[in-house]
């Protein structure tokens, strides 16, 4: 069971209040029609899925209904930070490795 800090509610809340929404910082192509099937398919389905540091989206579905980002270690499940949409992570895979 995870305790996730909601950057909007500014509280640690139980995992059950949230829903996971996949990898963060994937930007929708501005001109989808300009992309090949290959490029569009990569955007739609292909993911980093790392074992280790992962930047991901969470939705505080039962709380403030805000999406936010988390940097989480997918092996240890440690949540290293949560941050708001529009902000950049302070922890990266390279940074955490050092």
């Amino acid at each position, binding site marked *: 069971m995870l305790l996730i800090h909601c950057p909007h509610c500014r509280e640690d809340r139980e995992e059950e209040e949230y829903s996971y929404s996949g990898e963060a910082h994937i930007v929708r192509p501005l001109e989808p029609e300009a992309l090949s099937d290959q490029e569009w398919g990569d955007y739609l389905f292909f993911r980093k899925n790392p074992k280790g540091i992962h930047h991901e*989206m969470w*939705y505080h579905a039962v709380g403030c209904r805000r*999406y936010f980002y988390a940097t989480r270690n997918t092996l240890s499940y440690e949540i290293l930070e949560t941050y708001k*949409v529009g902000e950049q992570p302070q922890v990266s895979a390279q940074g955490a490795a050092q």
Partner: protein
Amino acid sequence: MAGTYSLAACLAEGASAGAEAAKLAGCGDGRIRFPEPQVEEYPEQPAQALFLVPHTKATSRAPSQFVDMQLDVSASGIELAVREGFKSVEHIKRYTAMGFGTDQGKLGNINGMAILASALGQSIEQTGTTIFRPSYSPTTFGAIAGADVGALFDPERYTAVQRWHQEQGAAFEDVGQWKRPWYFPRGVESMQDAVSRECLAVRNSVGILDASTLGKIDIQGPDAAEFITRMYTNSYLKLAPGKCRYGVMLKEDGMIFDDGVCACIGDNHYLMFTTTGGAAGVLAWLELWQQTEWPDLKVYFTSVTDHWTTATITGPNARKVLAKVCADIDLANDAFQFMDWRDGTVAGVAARIFRISFTGELTYEINVPAHYGRHIWEALIAAGEEFDITPYGTETMHVLRAEKGFIIVGQDTDGSMTPADMNMDWVVGKNKTFSFIGKRSLQRSDSVRENRKQLVGLKTVDGTQVLPEGAQIVFDPEQKIPMSMQGHVTSSYFSSNLGHSIALAVVKGGHGLLGKTVYCPLADGRSIAAEIVSSVFYDPKGERQNAE
């Protein structure tokens, strides 16, 4: 081995523990007030671990030496596993079943692993342990399940009219967490009889449906129209206040995931209807795109599903019923047209009325705040009495919409259907400047492939036969197994209005196969023949919903 072993040390430890306890109880100061007893000390070796009592014979030949008492794992079994080449402690566990009992190895595993280490000629540390798993002590399923069983297993969601439906003896259908009236049997009526009666009532006079479970999302903000237009396949930029439009929503993979009507309430203000099951998902979907992709678009979403009770009155007499309880809206066909909505007063309650239709008949969907739900419902029943207004459930709704060829997302679609597959190209805005969600995927090679499964109607050659929903469709009923399946029946009913059965199906290249005879091979060996026809069985020009 931890612990205190010598007699003198045990006595000293006991004495000081007693003195400490006395101090905590308020007696004494923790000092020992009597001399320690003198005992003879013998020199002792450190305790030695004895994991397996040696026997004069080899373990394999000695009497069985049990290690795991619950599962009769013996020392010779562990040695046999090693002999057969297993080395990992996990393999030994799985080969011998050591530690699988309810003690989870708490009694025997340490001995077993030590015997294994010795058989492998390595240390206990090198051998390692198996992974211990919860629960520490076996715990009953019931204790873990807790109170969330029986009626509390999952919430039953009710509309404000639920008690009325129950009092009328409705049969209910589970739709998501909602309980929805399925049909309203009278007396000893069978389901088919009840549904036939309800269907005929709607087409010939008027019926009433509790449509409160449909998802409803209030949308406000200067960029609301732009945002909605990005989410639906068609455009809402020019939708005027007082008007409604039907829309289809795709996932980014181009497949239909929800549909419904969206109404323009006022400047920068819209009300979006979703399917019953899709309500929460659509709201999260809208929030996802607004919050994470386009935070620059100024628009807010609020769920109002629970706020409104929606009573749908539909049928040629719908206007007459409404006129009896609503005086402040001009109900004339020109003044309040199909796909319009109006604010007014119904049976004394401020109401919002949508003239939209899922039956193909003249229809008014009357929305009031839900605490007036039962009031408005009973008022409409009373007003409709002279027209024998007939409450109907989801089954009749399904039959009536199928007669019109209207799809149900999740029944006629399965997450692999595009609007074009559903013969709904008309709902896709080809000239929209923004590449709406899912648009690019509609041009992928598989989306434009010929021979995709497409929505068609099926009319059985013998009109009394109703195809089973889920029946597979083949061209050649004599073909040997494996047969070439061309599609399947998604919806199928007996239409009392038409006097024959009707079905919707998806068939490979179906749009080009009108008139072709296909077959549904059934489990009992029969094959039912049916003709591919238009998916609109009734009132193909859509005149009835515009009725004067």
